[in-house]
């Protein structure tokens, strides 16, 4: 990944980035938002964005080689983009993975401030894109959301009990502090605490469907109450749809289990 700031009259840089969104602007152009390693979330105008040639490049989740240039640094600037890896096409035939990809892109697009570097989150996102091909993608997605919360300054501490209980028997998360609470310490307040999914506990095994749903509930709570509490649109719709889709899928699976049982 090479980034260059050239000392010409034009401000410009080159980097690789993940397409977060492409908002139509005018008849043929779009304002494209990318997550890059060195520039963070950066927007730019793409001329002819919805032409037959470029349309496939600007799908959310695709990795592109980007060249940004502008006369003045503070301006929107213009992008020249070339597709490096078509991630969106790899997950299009899987409804859940596609929803997760859209959700991750929408969360970054809505939550990250522009032109503020988040290299850890960028590399985490790249790892998530690779893991989407595996069976553990759902647990990885929740861990990525926890990393996003941390990157935005809302770190969850899920390693030790905030109530002084055993660190080996963590079962809840405090909605006020985002810290884990052990089963013993949290039992009297369990109605007010959020359940901690099994795969996020120390020395845990693989995640079950129910754990994933609990994990999505957990991160959704903190996204809603901490990150997007002052956003006019609240938690992005793509994240809400992922949650809903997973809950429906889980309900159907459980329903069929009950019927066969």
């Amino acid at each position, binding site marked *: 990944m090479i980034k260059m700031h050239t000392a010409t009259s034009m401000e410009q840089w080159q980097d690789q980035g993940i397409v977060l969104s492409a908002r139509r602007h005018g008849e043929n152009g779009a304002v494209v938002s990318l997550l890059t390693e060195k520039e963070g979330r950066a927007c730019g105008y793409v001329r002819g964005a919805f032409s037959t040639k470029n349309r496939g490049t600007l*799908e959310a989740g695709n990795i592109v080689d980007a060249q940004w240039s502008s006369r003045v640094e503070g301006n929107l600037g213009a992008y020249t983009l070339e597709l490096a*890896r078509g991630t*969106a*096409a790899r997950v299009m035939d899987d409804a859940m993975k596609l929803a997760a990809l859209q959700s991750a892109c929408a969360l970054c697009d809505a939550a990250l401030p522009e032109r503020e570097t988040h290299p850890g989150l960028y590399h985490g996102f790249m790892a998530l894109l690779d893991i989407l091909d595996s069976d553990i993608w759902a647990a990885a997605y929740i861990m990525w959301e926890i990393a996003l919360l941390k990157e935005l300054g809302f770190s969850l501490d899920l390693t030790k009990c905030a109530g002084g209980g055993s660190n080996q028997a963590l079962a809840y998360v405090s909605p006020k502090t985002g810290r884990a609470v052990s089963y013993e310490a949290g039992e009297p307040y369990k109605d007010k605490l959020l359940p901690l999914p099994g795969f996020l506990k120390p020395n845990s095994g693989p995640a079950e469907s129910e754990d994933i749903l609990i994990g999505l509930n957990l991160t959704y709570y903190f996204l809603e109450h901490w990150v997007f509490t002052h956003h006019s649109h609240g938690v992005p*719709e793509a994240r809400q749809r992922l949650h809903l889709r997973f809950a429906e899928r889980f309900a159907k699976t459980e329903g069929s289990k009950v019927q066969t049982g």
Partner: protein
Amino acid sequence: MTDRLNSQDGPLEHLIRLLGGLPGLGNRSARRIALHLLSKRSALMVPLAAALQQAAENIKDCSTCGNLDVIDPCAICRDETRDNSKICIVAQVSDVWAIERTGAYRGRYHVLGGLLSALDGIGPQDLRIESLITRIETAQTRPDEIILALSATVDGQSTAHYIADRLLSSGISVTRLAHGVPVGGELDYLDDGTITTALKSRSAAA
């Protein structure tokens, strides 16, 4: 020139502004078209105005499938020679025209009127999905296949997955168009996303 046009608000400027708002046209093209129309008033401008008026007054959405026609239900829905066992779901009326051009499909259609898009805030309630469900449930001849002919984009496939989920309990076979190498396409010139989907949807050669 534009400022001068804007400052006067005569019928010519009004016409140019309206033409300039059409897809693919800017101010300059709009001015050229306006002048061309004015140079052929009786041969082109008056018939065009009449055609626009007639289209605006008579063309309506088909209450069954969402297609455009002067009669409701539309010609495709009225055609009794068509196969009632298949419904092809498309995003726009232009997609109906594209499939009809091929002559390869003789079933029914259902036009959604767009695609689900979280970015643009288009949800299921903004599309003709509920009317599709009602149409299937109340059909005299129950369809045995729903073909999802939606674009191979993130929004297109999200919509396809949503509809497939909604129809899961109906027991109707839900299929989608193949994704992959276009006719005349050479592998060397294809993007990796197209090749990936083509590999995933490969079929037996014999």
